[in-house]
């Protein structure tokens, strides 16, 4: 079983995100990065499946050189190897450009299953996995909160609003995982040591057969026009309890038709 996990390395949760006014993109260079927790869950799921069924887990990521720390993290967790698309030409890619890059990198690998997080924790678009599936010509199986494999068949519990649906498909597929699917493991010290010796294969867009006008800012069909802060929230209503605070709150909720 060869599993490919697409995962993003993003600014660490402790970093205050700044938007570069010139590019209107997140300023990523030089800030502390980490493997997206959502991607860590996808890696974890890949590891659990290969621990049961044998095989390899390869992390595929597109990102700047600061991403190395997050890649090492996935390798320290136990991923077999990694592919890093590292190229200034892919900076500013929109979701479709990103999907083209990832799909082209995946095509260079043997794969039976591609696992992606439902969405990344820094930009939350949630579109890339579907596009990757399309470009690979295989079905997307989404919102998995549980995955089981049996030979060539994958069965997932697909999270729905009120519960879950059971979805079955033949491999290969792209499956997306929900954040609650598992608790990603912490790397063991020995895993960290072993990660040093594992391969991180680096590609440019050209090496993946993608021309400069297909990816990056140049290829982007989505354009960010402006970036703004959300409107300030209105001050809340303060109820001072002078014996009938409870009634005031009840009246307020009734006014909103909540009770």
């Amino acid at each position, binding site marked *: 079983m060869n599993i490919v996990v697409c995962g993003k390395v993003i600014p660490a949760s402790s970093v205050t995100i700044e938007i570069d006014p010139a590019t209107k993109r997140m300023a990523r260079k030089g800030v502390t990065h980490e493997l997206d927790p959502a991607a860590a869950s996808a890696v974890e799921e890949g590891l659990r499946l290969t621990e049961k069924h044998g095989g390899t887990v390869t992390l595929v990521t597109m990102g700047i050189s600061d991403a190395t720390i997050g890649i*090492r*993290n996935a390798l*320290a967790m136990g991923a077999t190897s990694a592919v890093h698309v590292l190229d200034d030409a892919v900076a500013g890619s929109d979701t479709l450009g990103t999907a083209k890059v990832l799909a082209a990198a995946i095509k260079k690998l043997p794969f039976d299953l591609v696992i992606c997080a439902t969405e990344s924790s820094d930009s939350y678009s949630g579109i890339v996995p579907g596009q990757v599936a399309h470009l690979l010509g295989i079905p997307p199986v989404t919102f998995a909160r549980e995955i089981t494999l049996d030979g060539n068949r994958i069965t997932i519990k697909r999270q729905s609003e009120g519960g879950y649906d059971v979805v079955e498909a033949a491999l290969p597929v792209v499956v997306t995982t929900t954040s609650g699917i598992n608790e990603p493991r*912490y*790397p*063991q*010290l020995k895993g*960290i*040591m072993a990660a*040093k010796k594992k391969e991180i294969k680096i590609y440019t867009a050209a090496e993946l057969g993608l021309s400069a006008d297909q990816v990056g800012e140049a290829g982007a069909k989505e354009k960010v026009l402006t970036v703004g802060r959300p409107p300030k929230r209105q001050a809340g209503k303060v109820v001072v309890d002078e014996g009938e605070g409870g009634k005031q709150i009840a009246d307020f909720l009734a006014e909103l038709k909540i009770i």
Partner: protein
Amino acid sequence: MDFNLTQEQRHIREEIRRACREFPDAYWREVDGKGEYPDAFVRKLTELGWLAAPIPEEYGGAGLGITESSIILEEINRSGGNATACHAQMYTMGTLLRHGSAEQKKRYLPQIAAGELRLQAFAVTEPNAGSETTRIQTTAARRGDKYVVHGQKIFISRVLQSDLMLLLARTTPYDQLEDKTRGLSVFLVDLREAKGKMEVKPLDLMINHHTNSVFFDGLEVPGENLIGEEGMGFRYIIDGWNAERILVAAEAIGDGRWFIERAARYANERVVFGRPIGANQGIQFPIAQAHARVEAADLVRFQAATKFDRTERCGAEANMAKFLASEAAWEAANACLTTHGGYGFASEYDVERKFRETRLLTIAPVSNNLVLAYLAQHVLGMPKSY
């Protein structure tokens, strides 16, 4: 000297930091309040392999140096925790690695690395011999193929939480020795087999170290558990001192950074007389000064650790690092407490707990006076003062 950490060392720092986040202030506060051993924490770190960092790979450890081990202990203290619960294994490992027999290493190290055995106790100090180690009176007398131990130790931590304990005992009477640094031997005591011949009485101390008086009443230790040669124990312990001092320094650096971070944050938040207290030089200067001292001490610590890992002589640097770091951490602790005013005394701010904990590092495992005596005598060539 270049103290930039390697990518792997940075990775180790990031990961131990992440693992520690699972044990927030509230965890340590509760353990401290109840006087409990931080068992869940020690288990977790063991499971992730952190405490086996210095054990060679052939015995199931990570085979890392003192630099990496010191980063691990630093990050535990920096996270708000307290590495004492598990540092002894790193402090004492050198004695076992350097002087233990192949047979002893094969028997114990893989189990220690796997977390099946804990070696967290180290019995040296006695009521009549603290700083003056060569005066210890606990005896180990050879009887056939074993040693029989009689005597008393004090301030021995984690005896009840460990499976194995290193013991320093006298094998030749003091007055029969020409060289007073001879006559002591190190034993690896299997505490699981010591019942009945050893009494452990917990002491009530200012900090939660699970520290005890230990009475030996004919404890039998198999001859095969003697480490190295009989009579050479003090040398073996001294051999471990540089490593220990570097590790203590790193714990102090971790504490220092914790105090400074908390102090600076509180100084920005707390508004008195209409402005943050950090706007007053009387508050900000002590914090800035402590910060400078902690960072300076850290450089000496990395210099000592780098030399140690290159197997260069590092006695001077290791001692200076221990001295500078423990004093800087204590200065940071005071600045942090002052900054917090009365709230610093409330356990829920964790300052008073860390304040108690970091104070120890100027006194144990070795008092800073003895560190200065070392520097004066061995580095500066002044007369021996004790």
